[in-house]
């Protein structure tokens, strides 16, 4: 992580008619950080991301991605970000390699599809179509597609929702590796263990506002310092540990 701020959101407000989905959200993401946005359904996580990603217009506030103002130059912002959308798909009838080559062209780039597929460990599926991929493979492919323009910031909206524990852990590996290659990642998730494992800092959102923003261990420490104790004593293993011990860490979707 460096001190350079790559994404700055200041007083972001987004309304849908009478409903204010995002009410004055402010945060800054540093280069090569994995930044988590957590919160219950309807907290405004996805709307916040969509405003940054140029998919929705910003009603108030400023959003700067790599110094570019989203409201003034959305087209320039599109060029420096990589996006994995929640519940979006890709064209049928094209192979993964063809899709990546096509998406590269949308940015005016000639990409090496196999190198990108290597990045997410899908080289052997280069000639498959998206419809024939497993859930985990689809998400990994989505990430590969988000990398075609060598973006500065990558947005992942609930990338592990619906995946089995093995696929989830595998995807964590992919995300960490991409960060190690110098990318900045903004991720939303419902899994707290995932946020704790991956994120350098997390913002917790509720009803359109950020109610806490710090590294996960600091948030935990603050809670404990306030006198919080779990009702049940900490066990040495969780059910997920049991599951993984029984079924192994090997991916099942290949």
């Amino acid at each position: 992580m460096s001190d350079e701020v790559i994404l700055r959101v200041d007083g972001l407000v987004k309304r849908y008619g009478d409903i204010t989905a995002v009410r004055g959200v402010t945060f800054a993401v540093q280069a090569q950080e994995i930044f988590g946005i957590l919160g219950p359904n309807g907290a405004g996580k996805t709307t916040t991301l969509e405003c940054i990603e140029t998919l929705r217009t910003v009603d108030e506030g400023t959003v700067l991605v790599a110094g570019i103002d989203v409201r003034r130059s959305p087209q320039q912002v599109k060029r420096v970000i990589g996006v994995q959308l929640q519940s979006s798909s890709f064209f049928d009838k094209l192979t993964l390699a063809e899709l990546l080559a096509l998406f590269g062209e949308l940015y005016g780039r000639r990409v090496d599809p196999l190198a990108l597929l290597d990045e997410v460990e899908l080289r052997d599926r280069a000639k498959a179509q998206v419809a024939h991929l497993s859930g985990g493979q689809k998400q990994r492919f989505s990430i590969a597609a988000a990398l075609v323009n060598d973006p500065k910031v990558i947005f992942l909206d609930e990338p592990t929702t619906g995946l089995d524990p093995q696929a989830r852990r595998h995807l964590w590996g992919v995300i960490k590796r991409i960060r190690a290659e110098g990318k900045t990642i903004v991720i939303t998730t419902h899994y707290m263990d995932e946020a704790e494992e991956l994120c350098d800092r997390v913002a917790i959102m509720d009803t359109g506002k950020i109610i806490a923003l710090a590294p996960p261990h600091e948030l935990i420490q603050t809670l404990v310092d306030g006198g919080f104790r779990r009702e049940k004593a900490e066990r040495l293993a969780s059910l997920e540990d049991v599951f993984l011990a029984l079924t192994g860490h090997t991916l099942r979707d290949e």
Partner: protein
Amino acid sequence: MRVIWKLTVASFKMFFRQREAILWTLLFPLLVVILFGFVRFSGVGSIALGIVNDAGPAGAGLIARIRTVRTFDVTEGTREAETAELAKGERDLVLVIPAGYTAAAADSLTALGDVEAKPQSTQLGSLVLQRVLDEGVFAGAPGLHRTLLATVPFKTRNLNYIDFLLPGVIAMSIMQAGIFGVAFGFVSLKKRGILRRLWVTPIGPSDFVSAQVAMRLVVLVMQMTIMIGVGLLFLHLHFIGSIALLYFIGVLGAIAFLGFGFALAGISRSEDQVAPLANIITLPMLALSGVFFSRTNLPGFVRAITSIFPLTYLADGLRSVAIDGATFGAVLPQLLGLTVWAVLACAVAFRLFRWE
């Protein structure tokens, strides 16, 4: 430009990797032509009789009696007009009542017909006409003598139903590809978030739509070529027009109907919403725009309304060029009509375009 080209190539690949698409766009129209082509509607119905009356009031009595015969579908006209219709195949038989004819004194009358091309309707028509003449003799005063009908062979272009049908089916396929192909395909891309994913890349709607239109137009040209080719090779199509003009009209019609398709896709969120709208637009045109049957027998006001349907302009334009050899000037009304529809449809489509 390179982006549009790459998107076009990609949509082309996607189109041809869908087996059902090939079936519906290339084989289905052909099947319609072949099936309808084998059904001989002309064999059973009425006989189209043209009458050229150069005798004035003297011929009126005979014409009135002929008109009572249900077998005939009678049209009166000048010699030039009726023989032209006969040549086109719009008449089965043309009866000529010469100047100076009187029922009392005529020894013979002539009827023109293409005995080779339409043996049944010419012969049947001649027989019935002779019978009408003979009944006049028996009903009339004694002393009238029999007027004999002489059938004079007339070489026509021997146009078949297939010549009428094939341009109509091409027009129909253009409409279906535009409205159903685009609207359903596009709504599905929208619903599944595929367009949203494209929206976060730097391309604009015009890049994507241009590529779609380019792909559809190439498919259309292939489709027209296959249908005309099969028509000429296997179905004795009598094609005499300018092939370039035919494709020009086809492309113009396709742009109009693609506009319809994109407009429908713009206002619909799911395939369930597209289907009824698409049917409301296409079914009246399929029935009334002269794709399968000539619009001449429609009631006047229906004919007036249907004459401005885009499918009517398209079918009439294609047909005039294909079988009448119409020139650019001759199909100008159709070209203008299609242009107006194309501009309207595209303007609406442009306003209604949504990525999601």
